[in-house]
């Protein structure tokens, strides 16, 4: 029986292949939506994992997380420099590091920070950390090696090409890969950012990016105490890790006020996922509609096919094949094509999600884990069951065909 089905498929392979491909594309659509949404969710959650808490000036919490976790360039208001000093002295804090944005080099964001962040992100893979103000550490995806030098450009003005001519950094080390956007970052001492932007301690110009150009003394040693000084310049964000989860909760409570706001990246992401989830349900609905359309089209083709082959089906009956066997042959043939289509669609969907994820990964640095979950089994079984159910209709029509009527045809 199987041999007969296979011989029939071999004979009609172009049509069978076309139908299997249409089913595969419809399946792939649904699989890709599911996998890609999951990859975005897991990827962003893992990217945010390094930081318990992000503290910034009272403004958009979402923007604070997007800027600090995903390095999305945006003007953030500055916090008083004293906050960093308080955090550095706080016994609940395991480590805290200021981050100052604003510069870039060939599209790679240059971020001012301290050695604490380097350790917090997983440490140096190659070379060494900051010793002098002119030192830089690059993320794993930045195409620079220890010994390379560069002049950062002020990000907002990058299009106009304003280079900090007086500022030269030398790459000293490369970060271990983190699978987060920080793999695309160039880290420099935050004191160097202050110096090159003319924001020395005590001359803090709150929130204004229009600063006068300063020169960087690249050989001046890094002074870890400078960032914790009470009169330190303001910073847009501080990332913090507490000793325990309870500490992190206490810190979040403590630093929410009129001076600063503290958020768990996770809480902001959860809100974003809510939006993402809505988009996913819309896309899933579109995918299901596409699958239903394809099912209808395939059903139509199957019905035409069965009607066209009345005589052949009648002949099988005339030669002694029972109605049950005919039913099984037609059902098996349609179900086999559909199952092959669904199987190919799973692979195709996975491949599409991988390709999309690779592009997002290259652009954002966020590692996108494309993986199947147990719940996908339900989706696949559902599709197979629907295909099997659809195949019943042409099979039933073949079953009801009289062998005599078929031969007269």
């Amino acid at each position, binding site marked *: 029986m199987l*041999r*007969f089905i296979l011989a029939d498929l071999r*004979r009609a392979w172009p049509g069978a292949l076309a139908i299997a491909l249409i089913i595969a594309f419809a399946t792939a659509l649904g699989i890709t939506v599911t996998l890609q949404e999951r990859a975005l969710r897991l990827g962003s959650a893992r990217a945010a994992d390094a930081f318990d808490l992000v503290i910034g000036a009272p403004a958009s919490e979402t923007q604070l997380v997007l800027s600090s976790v995903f390095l999305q360039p945006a003007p953030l208001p500055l916090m008083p420099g004293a906050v960093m000093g308080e955090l550095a002295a706080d016994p609940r804090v395991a480590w805290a590091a200021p981050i100052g944005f604003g510069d870039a080099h060939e599209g790679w964001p240059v971020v001012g920070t301290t050695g604490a962040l380097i350790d917090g992100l997983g440490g140096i893979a190659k070379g060494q950390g900051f010793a002098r103000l002119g030192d830089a550490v690059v993320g794993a995806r930045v195409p620079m090696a220890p010994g390379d030098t560069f002049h950062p450009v002020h990000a907002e003005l990058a299009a106009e090409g304003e280079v900090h001519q007086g500022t030269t950094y030398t790459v000293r080390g490369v970060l271990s890969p983190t699978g987060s956007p920080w793999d695309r970052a160039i880290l420099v001492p935050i004191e160097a950012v202050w110096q090159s932007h003319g924001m020395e301690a005590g001359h803090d110009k709150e929130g204004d990016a229009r600063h006068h150009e300063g020169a960087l003394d690249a050989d001046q040693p890094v002074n870890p105490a400078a960032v914790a000084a009470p009169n330190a310049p303001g910073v847009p964000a501080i990332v913090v890790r507490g000793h325990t989860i309870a500490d992190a909760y206490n810190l979040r409570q403590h630093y929410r006020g009129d001076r600063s706001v503290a958020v768990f990246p996770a809480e902001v992401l959860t809100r974003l996922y809510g939006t993402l989830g809505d988009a996913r349900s819309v896309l899933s609905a579109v995918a299901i509609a596409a699958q239903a359309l394809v099912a209808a089209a395939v059903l139509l083709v199957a019905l035409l096919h069965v009607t066209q082959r009345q005589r*052949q089906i009648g002949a099988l*009956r005339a*030669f002694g094949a*029972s109605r*049950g066997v005919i039913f099984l042959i037609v059902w098996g043939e349609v179900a086999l094509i559909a199952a092959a289509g669904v199987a190919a669609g799973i692979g195709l969907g996975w491949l599409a999600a991988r390709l999309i994820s690779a592009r997002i990964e290259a652009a954002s640095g966020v590692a996108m884990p494309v993986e199947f979950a147990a719940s996908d089994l339900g989706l696949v079984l559902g599709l197979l069951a629907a295909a099997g159910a659809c195949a019943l209709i042409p099979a039933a029509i073949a079953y009801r065909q009289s062998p*005599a009527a078929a*031969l007269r045809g």
Partner: protein
Amino acid sequence: MARLAIRNLVARFPGLDQPALDVPAFDLDAGARIALRGPSGSGKTTFLNMLTGLARVPEGHVTWDGIDLATLGEGARDRWRAANVGLVMQDFHLFPGLSALENVLLPRRLRWRGAEKGAREEALGLLRRTGVPRPDQPVETLSRGQSQRVAVARALLGRPAILVADEPTASLDAEAGAAVGALLTDLARETGATLVVATHDPELIERIGRVAHLTAGRLAA
């Protein structure tokens, strides 16, 4: 051995006053041979459908060896036909994509229990006997005469007691038609099958020896 007795067989088509088929009584001894003649529309196909259980017997009795097809349901008729009837049709109904041997075996293999042991050897023997030189040849590449030989071999697999052919030589040239006609009659004699052939082929009619005329649904021997 199969003996046929038809009593009061009447078949009508909707919308027609005259019955398509009206056979008060018709008998055939086991192993008998008969050619069935009649213009198209005379009810030949309907008659063959009744004989072979392809269609339900609407009125009357078609009894083969005591089994009245009128009393059998569709599934039971399928089973009875599979066990007792070999069919040869005008346009062969071979299934492309399969070899000659696979075509002969197909009706057996499409049973729930599959083909019995020895069916393959029997099929090979029948293909030899019907003069098909290469059993593994795909049927699409066979000539019409060869195709009908394969169809005859298929009809004879399992030594059915009844052999029914519908215009078996009509789509063949004279030479191939004569060969197939000879095969049918010879093999029916060798196996003792009751042979019923609807045909217009005078040579085949002569070979069969006995002819019944079907006109407007009425049978005259």
